Each structure stands twice: as C-alpha cells, then as structure tokens.
C-alpha cells in the first residue's frame, strides 16, 4: 500500500509504455515497487508529512519547502529530482535528521525524528542512516580503510577486528576498491573517492542511504560506476536508497522518481526495478511534463 501519490502519477506512469524504444525486454523487469513474496508492497520506512522549511537569509525569508508529503518503502530506490533551488537537498537533509523542519514531521522507522535532540539525532545518524554528499566526503588525513571505518570509530568501536573488520572488507569489495585500502583520499580519483564515501555510508548497514548529488563532480563513466554501486547495494542487499540529483541519467537507476519544483513534489514517475538503467523513458516522460 502506498500512502501517497501525486495525483497524476499513476496515470502518467501508465503512459511510460507509449514512447518506449527500448523494446519489450526491459519491460519484463518493470516492477512498480518492491514486493514481498506474497505480492504486497513493503511497508514505508520513511515518511514525510506536510514538511515546510523556511530559512532567513540576511533580511530575506526563503521558503525551501512548502508542504511535502511522501514516503519511501523499505528496499526501495527513490530519486528526488528537480532543478537547483527546488528544495530537493533540503528535503534530503530533513529526511536524514540533519536539520529540523519548520513544520510537519518526518517519521523514520515509525518514530518522529523531526524534533529530536541533538544527541538523539547524532545516534540516529550514527546507527540508522548513511550519507553521501557531492564532494569532500572524506577526511583527507585518514586512509581509505580508516575513512570507511570512521562510523565505527566515532561510535567508540574498534573496526580493526572481528565482525566489523569483515564488514569493512565487504563494503570495500562491494565498491570494488580492494587493494586501495591504505591509500589516502588524495591518491584516489574523484570517482574512487565517491565510492569510498558510498562504502562508508553502507558499512553500518543503515536503514536508509541518503545521497545528495553523489555524481555531481564525476564524469560520465565514473558517475555510472558509482550509480551501479548504489544500485547493487539496493538490488542485492535490499538497501533503501534516497538519491537527490538533477541528472535524469542518475535518476533512471531509481525505482521511482519524485520531481520537485519550488518546494513541492510536482510529479511522481514510477520506473520500477530495471536491470538496464536506460534514461530514455524517464527523459521522454520528463519532456512530457515540461522539464
């Protein structure tokens, strides 16, 4: 069950079939949302209800979000798309508990996180969420391994032995950085640096991975590699991913795309889980709604 849909979303999603030039093969992969074995949709892990966020910048009041209601199901890959200044990053920050909304609520795993204390929010970030940002995710003076293990170190655990050590090794394998564990960030390419960031976000096995323009600084190929890594974590390990991007090619990896404009969700485009991440259907769909 989906608690909320932008009105036209389903109807428009249906029209996706029309302009397809990818051939029917891709449509066999079409799954509107992840489903349980019994065919029911997974329960929502993250919900936003009537979120607004106002900033005071100098003497001007900026309204970044003007009432957003949405939800993300467990195991789902959701992309938040929109032009710059649309409020998509603000929404992601609120969803991850980095900031507090002016009004409305964020319910994460059944708990309202929109008015938590700093200590509670810190614990949440440490244990339940993982973040990847556009750039400068890494601590320059720490090695790849140390950077990835940082969440454990912060939590006061020793990541160099036992299960944690295995987990660090596993995520390094997942992002295909085996052999570069002792490199410093400045010895890596930008793409590799971002993959380290993904590995770090995944190492704690968070409920949700939140990524803010993770490919913004990457070229076509390395960007694709990173998205592939995100997608694999979702598809193979059931990782819930919320991705903010303005790039249709990146958004095409998602199961579902929420289009944000001027602080509101203006459209929902359901792509379904696809092995092939062709952006063409999404692009044509976006063209239809005038984006």
């Amino acid at each position, binding site marked *: 069950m989906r608690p909320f849909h932008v009105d036209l979303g389903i109807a428009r999603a249906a029209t996706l079939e029309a302009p397809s030039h990818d051939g029917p093969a891709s449509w066999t992969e079409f799954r509107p949302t992840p489903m349980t074995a019994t065919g029911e949709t997974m329960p929502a892990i993250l919900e936003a209800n009537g979120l607004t966020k106002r900033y005071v910048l100098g003497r001007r009041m900026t309204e970044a979000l003007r009432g957003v209601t949405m939800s993300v199901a467990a195991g789902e890959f959701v992309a938040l798309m929109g032009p710059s200044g649309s409020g998509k990053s603000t929404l992601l920050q609120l969803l991850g508990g980095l900031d507090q909304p002016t009004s409305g609520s964020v319910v994460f795993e059944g708990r309202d996180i929109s008015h938590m204390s*700093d200590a509670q929010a810190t614990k949440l970030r440490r244990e339940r969420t993982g973040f990847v940002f556009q750039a400068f995710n890494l601590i320059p003076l720490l090695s790849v391994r140390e950077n990835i293990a940082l969440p454990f170190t912060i939590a006061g655990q020793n990541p160099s032995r036992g299960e944690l050590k295995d987990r660090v090794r596993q995520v390094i394998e997942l992002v295909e950085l085996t052999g570069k564990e002792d490199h410093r960030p400045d010895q890596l390419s930008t793409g590799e640096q971002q993959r380290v960031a993904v590995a770090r976000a995944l190492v704690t096995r968070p409920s949700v991975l939140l990524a803010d323009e993770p490919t913004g600084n990457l070229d076509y190929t390395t960007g694709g590699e990173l998205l592939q890594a995100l997608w694999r974590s979702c598809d193979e390990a059931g990782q819930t991913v919320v991705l903010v991007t303005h790039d249709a090619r990146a958004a095409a990896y998602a199961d579902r795309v929420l289009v944000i404009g001027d602080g509101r969700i203006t459209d929902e485009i359901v792509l379904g889980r696809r092995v092939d991440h062709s952006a063409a259907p999404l692009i044509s769909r976006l063209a239809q709604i005038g984006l």
Partner: protein
Amino acid sequence: MGLNRLAWRMLAARPLRTLLTMVGIGLGVGVLAASLTLGAALDRSVDRTVSDIVGRADLRVSAFLESGLSDAALETVRSTEGVATTAATLEHRTFLSTATGDPQAAVTVLGVDPATYPALHDLTVVSGTGFAASDVQVALISQELARHDGYAVGSQLSILGAGGEQQLRVVGILAGSGGVSGSDRVALVPISVARQAFALAGASRIDIQVAAGVDPATVSARLAQRMAEPYVLSSPADIAAGLRASSASFQGTAALIAAIVLFVGAFLIVNTLSMTVGERAREVGLLRMAGSTRGQVMRFVFAGALVLGVVGSAFGVILGTAFAYALAHTVSAATGVTAIVTGIDPQSALMAGAVGLGITILGAIEPALRAARITPFEALRARFDLPSVRRSRLGWIAAVFVLVGAMALVAWPPAIAGSGAERALAVYAVLLVATLLTPFFLRPLARLLGLPVALLLRLEERLARGSLARDRSRTTLTLGSLVVGLAMVVALGWSAQAARASANAWLQDVIPGDEVVSSIRPIGPDEGVRDALRQLPGVARVTPIGTFDLAYRGYRVDAAAVVGADFLADGRLHAVTGDRDAALRGLDAGGTVIVPAAVAARLGLHVGDTMRVALAAANHVDLRVSAIVERSIPATSGEAVLVSWADATQSLGVAGADAFAVRFTPDATAADRANLDATATQYALEANPVERIQGAVADALARVFGLFDVLAIIAVIVAALGIVNTLTMGVLERIRELGVLRAIGMSRGQAFRMVVVEAAVLGIVGAVLGSVVGLVVGAVMLVLGGGFAPVVGVPWLPIEIAVVLGLGLPILASIYPSRMAARVSIVEALQFE
C-alpha cells in the same frame, strides 16, 4: 583608497583574530616598553645620584676613619701635582633645637668652602642669596627642611654643636634636597663655622677637579703614593659603575625577555596574515583578474599589517608604561637603585613602538609575497587549497628571528652595552635553532605523547594529530612560540635555582659552623662568651669572627679577623693560588692576609704581594698575601679579606668579635641546638642557623627572578593567543570535514573534544620541547653568566610549572575554537560553495 578599505575589511571580518594579534603585538611591545622605561628610569636615577654626590668633581677623597681627614691630608691633596681645584667638605649629623624645628629629625650639616664649593657643585638658590663671607654664622637650607620645619629666609636656625646651641641665620633656600644624596634635611654652612661648631679639624672629604689634560688615574696613583693616612678614593665613574652594576644584569635580562616576547609576537603576526591571505585567496585572485598588479596586492597585505602594528604598538606603549609603573617598586628593591616612573617615557615609547611596528611589517613580508604569487586562476577554482601553504616557512622564521635580534642589538640599553649582550645573543641563537628544529620533532613527539590520550579518546586523538600535520608551518610557528615561552620559564627558573644553590654553596664553603651567633657590639676575648658557648653540650667548635674594614690605596676593603686554625680544622675555604693549609696555619701568627679571588682581581693583588694598610696618625701595617681563595666570608659590600686576630686587635683597632661560628658535634640533638640559642640570648646574642642566612639570600634572589618570571609568562600568554588563532583557523578550514563527521554520527562532545585534544597534544609537545630547550638555554645562561657551576641539579619545579602552563594555557586557549567546532551547523557546513 579602495584596496586599503579591503585590507581593513579583511581584518574586520575576523574580529577575534585581529584583536588577539593586536593584543599579542601589544604585549610584546609592552614588555619592551616596560623594560626600556625602567632602564631609562634607572639610568636617570644613577645620573642624578652621581651628580648629587660628586657634582663636577673628577675625584673624591673621603675620610676612612671617623675622625675625618686631617688638615695635613687636605694639604697633601691640594699640593698633589695635577690637582686644579679642591673643595673640602665637613659633614656632620646633628639635631635642631628650636621651638620651630623638629627636634626628632636629624639634619645633615655640611660645612663647605664658600669660595671653592660652587666651582664643583651647583647650588641652586630658590630664594634668598648664597654665601657672602666665609666666617659668618649663616646657613643655606634645603627646600625640604624649610618646608617641613617652617623656615624662611631670615629665620634663626639653632643647631646642637659641641659647645651647646649654635645660632645661624638662614640666608637662602636651596632647591630640592640641596644637592646632597642620602638626606633631604640639609643645612650648608661655611666650613670654618662647622669646624668651630662641632670642634672638629680637617674635613670629611675633599672633591678634586684635575687640571686640564691630566688623567684622573694619574692623580689617583700620585695620591696613593703621597697619602699617609687612610682614605677612600672614588670617582664619578666608579660610583656610577657601582650603581649600574646592580641594575645592568636586570636590564640585560629584561631586554632579552622583551626580545623573546616580541619574537613570539612576530610568530603571531606571520600566522595571522598568512591565514588571512589563505582565506582571501579567491578574492585576491579576483582582484588580480580584475587587473590589480602584484604590487597592489602586496600593498594591501602591508596595509593590513600596518593597522595591526599601529594599533598593537600604541596599546603596547600604554601597557608597557603601566607595567613599568607597577614594577618600579620591585625593580628598585631588586636593584637597589630607585626607579621612578611618572608617565610615558617618550624615548622608550618611541623606540618600543617603532620596534613593534617594524616587526609587524617584517612579519608581513612573507604573507605579502605569498599573496602576490596568487594567480588570477585561483579565483576560478571550485574550492581553494593553497598549495604553497604546505611549503615550509622556516626560512622566514629564521629571517624574522635574525632581524628581531638585530633590532634588539640596536635597541640594547646603551648604559649596559657589552654587559651580558653576548649571553643574550647566545640564548637567542639557541631559541632560533630550537624553533627551526621543532617541525622535525613535532610528528614523532605528537605520536608518542599522544599515546595516553589515544587510549582514552582514540578518534579525537587521531583527528587532532592529523589536523596538526595539516599545515606544518603554521603548527611550527604556533608550537615554536609556545616552546620559546616555556623554555624561558624553565631557563629562568633554573638560573634562580642555580643562583640560590651557588649562594648556599658559598656559605657552606666559607662559614666554619652550623650556626652564626652574632652580636651588635664587639665582644672582647676576655669576656668568656666563646668559652661559655664552647662548653655547651653538643658544641664541637666555636670560632670568633670580627668584621671591620681597612683602607688600602684609596679603597675601602672589607676585612674579617678569624682563627686560621679553626678554618683549617673545619675544612673551610678553597685556595685558587697559594697553599691553603700553610696559609691558614700561618695566619694566626700575624703578618699575613688571605684574599678572596674577586677582591684580589679588583685590587690587583697576587700571592706574595704586600698589602700596606694605612692606619691613623700616618702609621701603616704591612700584610703579606699568603693565599688567594675562591670565596670568602660575605661582608657588607662583597667578600672579606681574612687577617689574624693578632693583627686585628694589635694594629687594626678591632675590639672584639661580632659573630661566632658554632659547629655542632655530629651527635648533637635538637635540644642541644635549642640550648645554644637560649644561652646566646642570655648574652644578648642572636643565633642564626646557616640555613636561615641562606633563606635570606634566597628571598633576595626570588624578588629579582620573580620579576623575570612575570615577563616570561607574558611570552607564554602571547603564545597562547597564537594557539587560539591557529586552532580557530583549523576549525574554519575543516568546517566541511566537521560537517561530514557530524553527518555520519560524530556528537557535539566529540567535535569539542577533538579540538581540545589538538590543543592538549600541542601543549604536551610544547611542554616537553620547552623543558628540554629551557635546560639548554639555562645551561648557556649559567655557563656564560659565569660563577655558577652548571651542575646544580634538575630544576624540577620550573619544569613542573612549564608543564602545567604548557598544558593548561593551550587547553584554555582551545575553549573558543572547540565551542565553535561543536556548534558547526551540518547543513551550512555541507553547502556546496
């Protein structure tokens, strides 16, 4: 001008850093200004004292005996070849006996020759007239006496003379204290009047002006040949040198510390301006893109430096005057020369201000050059990472250091030129080398000393250590200034300890006893006091010591009558030349003298020389120098020459002992000691354990060194200001990193602790390096200072103080930047520029 306004805005954008830098410069300039102001005050005081004492005289012959110089002696002086003008003075202290006068307060009556005295001394008459004739019963009195006792011109002054009251008429009032040192209640009368009033002949002293082209030293030598009776010869230069000697080492050390504080301040300036340039690199790039020349960019860095320098120096001059004012009393007590600070001393203020400004400009050179190297492309970069930041600025540290040293040499107090300058330079050089070596020690030391912290705060320690390695030049500058400040604390502490140990060792070496029982009157050998003390239980030996002085070739020499056999048996004294045992054994027979090395050097005496001691009535006694010892019994103005009791009582007029050194048996009990004290009290004697005498010496030393400690701690405070700057800069630079760390679960507390740990690691490394460097500096000071054996034990207390300061101040300094780190807003930190 537009660019200057930009410079101003750059400073205003970081008010805390700008303020800290200004305070840092201010403290440096303040210490220098205080040091110069106090030095000037001391010099003024010495000059005034000298001119009060001898006026325009080239030499002064004073009476050695209380009876004064005889008429024959005065005649000998006058007839000596090369003597042009003489002015004999008869000084006598007496009381006034009038209804108006204060019968309790003594007056100094100065009998002068009205004809010759004004030739050598200024008599500034503020009202009335000078002397008219030489035999009239008139007096000139000091303004102080007139004011206090209510005299005016024409008043009758009644003084107590030998034959009763003497009536004098006040004919003039002299300015101030009347130009006589030591008293401000002075009455000048014709010398004939004074002689008649007090029934005295001759004079107390005679001032000499030598003929043109004659060397006063030649005249001194002739006088030594011709004078039959004992006398003391002094010259203005001698007196000034004597007065200055006590203040010179103070001035030298104060100037050295000032140079060090300024140097630490220079660190602060280089750091601040470098940070500003680093932060503003993109703006600078834009300026360059818009067509600014390199020269304009440099000018605007210098404009910023000028603002810092001018405001900081002005603040420093005011602060320095306040320091000087506050310390004047302590300095006077420590040096024995009265330093009066009334306000800003223009010359000192100008000098200190110019040095402060100069150092600020020097400190700006490197950041300005770096700013000029910024290319217009820098403006286009998404994020600015100064590549040149990673390059070492060590060369510039050395350059600034050398220049500060050169400026210090120029500004070196001229009055003490030469004295201690090489010591200050050596210390300075050691500090430079230490600072340059700091970066090589930083990494391993931080790792090693961070281990205990790492056990508790693993993450914080790891991140803090990395942060310190981020900009090594900046860390070097910051750590270097801390090391230098702490090193001075340790070095000065060690010097104080060494001085104390040396004074203690001296007393141990020369005093043949555990206690010194002293008397205010001479105790004759027939009074049985010595025997009474010796028979007390637990007393092994009692030896009498009689202190007096003797006249030798125009010098007043401290002397002591001792029992050589007792010194021999007790194992006291070390001979530098001559046979100690033979000299002490032979001393008691009479005819010989044992001379301490310092006195031998001053008087030019060697073993085997004969010391002809002048006695009253043109007599003399010859004493052969039998040994020169390292140190001898302390006396009023140095160390005493040692003579036998036989010579002392038979020829030199010593009536008895004024002290007994008491040596206890090894098994003496506390009760025995108490018993001795009680017996001493019965004989109206005072028993002082040697430790108490040592304590008194230590107190005097503590006063001087306490002053230096204050100055050295200012250097540490300036270093702490630098730490605030550096840590704050570190937080600002890492704001994005902090945002990421917070986003992945770092708590506010962890962010706070990370910066505190950074400060603590800096502090621990600083304390360890500071202590080591301090020991080296201390050793240099002790060896070059001379007289002290460098092996005086490890100065644990100063090291403990350095560790406490080294840890405490940086942690205190980290509070502001730590809070800043803890309050970083994740959302703002992560905003993409």
